[in-house]
């Protein structure tokens, strides 16, 4: 599967997704500057991404814990998600995300 990630300079890169990894892990593995301070525990909101091009609606809706954490994030938009809570699978092949500002 492929992930299309746009960094904070507007540059899009293609990442080969690994089934079962989170999108946060894939973004970091690809060298993108995602802080992910809490290490993927849904406890810090520093891995926020905007899910683009209609992909937001295709995702499993955020759990209460993620909604709570997004409350503490900056620059939250209706298509904001925490990338540590998005697990790569074939259904997400081609998903487009943009890194939220730091």
């Amino acid at each position, binding site marked *: 599967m492929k992930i299309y990630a746009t960094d904070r300079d507007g540059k899009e890169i293609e990442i080969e997704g690994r089934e079962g990894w989170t999108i946060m892990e894939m973004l970091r593995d690809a060298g993108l500057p995602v802080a992910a*301070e*809490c*290490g993927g525990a849904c406890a810090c909101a520093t891995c926020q991404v905007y899910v683009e091009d209609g992909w937001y609606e295709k995702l499993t809706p955020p759990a209460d814990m993620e909604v*709570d954490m997004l409350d*503490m994030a900056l620059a939250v938009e209706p298509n904001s998600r925490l990338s540590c809570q998005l697990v790569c699978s074939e259904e997400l092949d081609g998903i487009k995300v943009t890194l939220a500002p730091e």
Partner: protein
Amino acid sequence: MSEPIQTDVVIIGAGPAGLFAVFELGLLDLKAHLIDILDRPGGQCTELYPEKPIYDIPGLPVVTGQELVDRLMEQIKPFAPTFHFGEQAAGLTKLPDGRWKLTTDSGKELIAPVIVVAAGAGSFVPKRPPIPGIEAYEGTSVHYAVRKMDSFAGKNVLIAGGGDSALDWTLNLAPIAKSLTLIHHRDGFRAQAHSVNQMRELVAAGKVNFHVASVKALHGQNGQLAAATLAGHDKKEWQIDADAFLPFFGLTIKLGPIAEFGIGLHENLIPVDTAKFESEQPGIFGIGDIITYPGKLKLILSSFHEAALMAQAAFHICRPNEKLRFQYTTSSSNLQKKLGVS
């Protein structure tokens, strides 16, 4: 100014790494002072995930972040470390006698032959919203905490956020402010339900304005805010009067002044050797998430090992004329006496 504090070791950061370092240093009779910008021990464990279970602490099949910190505090109690909470390590200079002088942001001075940087990913500081020019208003019109309620009396107050801080201050300041506007990215809140209900009553009574919106721009001069441009999710923008802006988005981690300490930082990490965990500056050690070496893993358990080896090396600096006697807590009556168990 008060006299500088003199001790054996100053530890920057009171997370699990810094706390366990007190134990390892204590076994060798080395006294420690700890500095932390937070108001309690635990670092990321208590600030980010106090309720989350940790499964990879040897001997503890499951323990929450808070429990681990509580247990470390119990473990180091016999060594009576001194904590300096709510302070940030601001400056570090080498003294002519070879010791180090660490200055905190409140002006406190600590002198010790050994400094241990156990700062994790850095200091917890309030999140700053990405609004152009917001820095110019900080301290005068933009506040990340309320110190004096009275200073908001008669003001047009704008509060952003959906947690307890945002809601509590909405409720507390609404009666004294000229106007109070609360904004949040959604019409739902993580704050206590009764606070949310009270806020909604104030909105219904016309005493608080609530908008699903974010701040796009701040307007004013010389640090004095006058108005703010808000934008809803539909991108529609409008302006409101605002003399004070209180963003409550919790804390984030910034490396902070450590970057200026001259300890050879590489990509915001301190390179250390793996025999002593000493930086390129003699007497300055590093343990935990802030350090790097070949094979480094950012695990709490790794920091415990690092602390043990650091303490051995620190001993030779603090007690150059003494011989280090390596002993086990299981068999040494001397160590058991220090631990208060014999």
